[in-house]
């Protein structure tokens, strides 16, 4: 029997608000432990939560960007479970009436295009962080566990997809697209390495074509898109091996081990966990005015999917358009300025997503430090299309411009990169080369065709590679 995977992704995004979800403490990262805490986020007796208006506005923006319906009356619930880094031993979250429901996201990769359903986007608060100290620093070998509550109460948005994903690669593509939308709306910096965006996957398998869903396993602890893809692939493999061997998949949560590249079962709970959700009595239901929601919708920025289509409409190659549409806004404006300054969109798109990005990476520079203007890209593409520099030399011109040596034509001149296409000058060089290599000329004429390449090389060498190869070829044909 053939088995097919069914995958859903749960994403947690920490919002980039100034203050926490239910108190006035600053949202911080990397500060000394327990320096941004108060009676509310430490759950001291008698303290009460007050919702952060800004966070609610942000989740609505995000929900609209994900094509969700905004529930006009949304309710907070308490999710009850005991854990040392959860100060109240319940998390204020949402249950049956989340802020946003029933959305979708269009996703595409080189191979496929597909739509992923968004079941819900809800508001909750983050937990503190357990820090294991002593011995190995791992949970099992730690002598002691300390808790840092700086993160406790940070506004957290959970985005739950429908189980619409059919492969590990698709899951990764969806995750990347979703992150791009989050970044675009500006609600979070969405940095995986800081944990400000976190991906969990629900994986199950079923006989190919079956309408029924298999037993799902939740996998956690993936800290890059690559590990998300690997973890899902590994889990699909594990489940397939199990059922093929006649065993059953158990409903559980598994931890991805990045080094061993396998998932491990976590503490096994008897039955499914019961969070005993009930309406949060400390908070009134939220009521959203429809005109206010419409205004928020009208203020949304252009999202990656639409931008992708717009770039393609300009003629940019599909792959470059996809990369560009989700790239850093400063790279995008470099591209758009280049086009405005007259660059061919195809060439400009290739330059920005290709050589410019590669050069930044080589320089270990951030996009913010980009020493390049759109009109310079436009000038460069023009020099290439007019044959004034070769494709190879153009890369060097770009480096020179980025090193601050001046405009593309100044750099090309100073670095002696302009192409030699002057016929008389080239004829002279060919004459000299033929005179210096009479033997080779003889061999060619007696039918040894491959010697022509040698002569060509000698010409390029004599011109330090600047000779226009097409012109040299023509002269050689005439002379030989």
């Amino acid at each position, binding site marked *: 029997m053939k088995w097919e995977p069914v995958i859903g992704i749960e994403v947690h995004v920490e919002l980039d608000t100034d203050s926490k979800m239910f108190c006035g403490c600053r949202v911080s990262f990397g500060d000394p432990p327990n320096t941004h805490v108060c009676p509310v986020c430490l*759950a001291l007796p008698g303290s009460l939560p007050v919702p952060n208006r800004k966070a609610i506005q942000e989740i609505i923006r995000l929900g609209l960007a994900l094509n969700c319906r905004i529930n006009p009356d949304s309710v907070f619930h308490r999710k009850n479970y005991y854990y040392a880094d959860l100060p109240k031993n319940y998390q204020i979250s949402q249950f049956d009436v989340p802020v946003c429901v029933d959305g979708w996201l269009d996703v595409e990769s080189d191979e496929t295009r597909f739509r992923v359903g968004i079941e819900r986007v809800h508001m909750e608060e983050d937990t503190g962080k357990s820090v294991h100290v002593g011995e190995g620093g791992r949970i099992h070998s730690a002598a002691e566990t300390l808790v840092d509550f700086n993160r406790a109460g940070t506004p957290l948005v959970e985005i739950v997809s429908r189980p619409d994903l059919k492969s590990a690669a698709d899951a990764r593509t969806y995750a990347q697209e979703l992150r791009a939308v989050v970044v675009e709306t500006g609600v979070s910096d969405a940095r995986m390495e800081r944990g400000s965006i976190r991906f969990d996957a629900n994986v199950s398998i079923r006989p190919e074509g079956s309408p029924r869903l298999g037993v799902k396993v939740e996998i956690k602890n993936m800290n890059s898109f690559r590990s998300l893809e690997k973890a899902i692939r590994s889990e699909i493999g594990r489940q397939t091996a199990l059922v093929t061997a006649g065993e059953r998949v158990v409903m559980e949560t598994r931890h991805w081990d990045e080094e061993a590249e396998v998932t491990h079962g976590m503490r096994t709970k008897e039955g499914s966990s019961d969070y005993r959700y009930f309406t949060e009595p400390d908070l009134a239901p939220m009521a959203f005015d429809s005109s206010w929601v419409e205004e928020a919708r009208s203020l949304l920025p252009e999202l990656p999917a639409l931008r992708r289509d717009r770039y393609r409409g300009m003629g940019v190659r599909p792959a470059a358009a996809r990369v560009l549409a989700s790239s850093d806004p400063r790279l995008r404006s470099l591209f758009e300025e280049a086009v405005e300054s007259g660059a061919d969109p195809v060439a400009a798109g290739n330059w920005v997503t290709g050589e410019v990005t590669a050069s930044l990476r080589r320089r270990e520079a951030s996009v913010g430090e980009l020493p390049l203007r759109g009109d310079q890209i436009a000038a460069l593409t023009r020099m290439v299309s007019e044959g004034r520099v070769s494709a190879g030399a153009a890369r060097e011109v770009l480096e020179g411009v980025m090193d601050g040596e001046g405009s593309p034509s100044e750099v090309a001149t100073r670095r002696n990169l302009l192409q030699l296409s002057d016929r008389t000058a080239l004829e002279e060089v060919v004459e000299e080369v033929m005179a210096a290599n009479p033997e080779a000329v003889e061999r060619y004429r007696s039918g040894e065709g491959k010697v022509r390449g040698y002569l060509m090389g000698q010409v390029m060498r004599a011109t330090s590679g600047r000779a226009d190869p097409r012109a040299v070829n023509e002269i050689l044909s005439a002379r030989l």
Partner: protein
Amino acid sequence: MPSQPLSITSAGAALRSGETTSVELLAAVMSRAEMTESELHCYLNLDREGAMSAARRADRELDRGEDRGPLHGIPVAVKDNMCTRGLETTCSSKILAGYRPPYDATAVARLREAGAVIVGKTNLDEFAMGSSTENSAYGPTRNPWDTGRVPGGSSGGSAAAVAAGSAIAALGSDTGGSIRQPASLCGVVGLKPTYGLVSRYGLVAFASSLDQIGPLTRTVRDAALLLSAVAGHDPADATSYAGQTPDFAGSLDRGVDGLRLGVVKELGGEGYQPEVSEATEMMLEKLAARGAEVTEVSLPLFDVALSAYYLIAPAECSANLARFDGMRYGLSVKGSTASDTMSDTRAEGFGPEVIRRILLGTYALSAGYFDAFYGQAQKVRSLLLDEFSEAYEKVDVLVSPTSPTTAFRLGERTQDPLAMYMSDICTIPSNLSGHPAISVPIGLDSEGLPIGFQVMAPALGERLMMAVAAEVERLAGFDALPPPALAPPPGVPL
């Protein structure tokens, strides 16, 4: 020196006429406490130093002509489930032994702002769960009228302190009757305001959707004054009422002429002490004689309100009390894992009634039982609200006894939780509806124990409710009756 037991009003007058000072008032209250505490145990903690410096400051301000209003310089007691900055706050639980909050509850902060002198923290049933103050981890409080009897609960310490004169007024909290029932059993006035009128910030939560802070005082006027000092919008409590607070003392002299009083049919009859029913009957006749239109109103859901309450309140408490886990504050019984520390701390720190309610609430919220228990209880709650609304189309206020019986003996109901829960049968509906209600003493039974009369009103109906309560107070003439054995005898200078 006044010879009658002091009220906020009379003490305030004496202060402003120069007859007495805040320091003298405090000294009188403290000396009452010294005389009675060994027997009554109203207080868990008397803040002698803090109170003295507050009283001195109040006197200095008055000398300079700075008058903060009716509460200025008045010794007030605070139930020990409200946070007081730097002053031990235990909720009568071992789990919070020695806990000193870093902040004042909003109600406490407003008391200080109003110039009140906080005498100390009063005893209660652990985490306000109980009706007799016998569930305190630090020993029960006794009733000043008969020390063999309970003061009611859970605000038993506050009620007994006001009755005994070891505080001029006190704050309590009321989740199912915890202000009104002890007020009734101790012969003082107790008022539960409309839900949201007084901020819950800093009140250690029992059942968040029901809890409300309110005054325990000698007179209805005092209740209005104390309520005025602590009520009003608080941005730190998202359920706090955002509108203007009414002038509570504004219509105390209005009388009841032309008002429609609805006698709740379900709150009386079988199970009610005959003397309580008779006293209520008599008061209704007197009110009618003053021009009130008295009719009987039936609210059938009152019969199931108690059951709904004993699902909703424990459910909320099971989550509210989850934070007491030995991790950050209070008692911590160290186990080999975090999980062991949590369960060992809770097993040792909580008393049996608290554990009973946490278990009940956890069960009521569990998957598979939610709809049958918690969900059903919430439905009853919303239907009850409809029933109230219908009743208030026919009458202006509803009236009933506050408690089916007068004070019962210590130990009498401790082995029978259901009998104990029945003590709150008359008071619980107003918590479920979020409406205000007040208890006023109207007489003594044959054993010399106080009987309370309850007036209930629609949301934010405090003014009208207090107008009726003030008339009840005048008609009862309770202050002319012999005082409790352990209260200040007349003529003793305070």
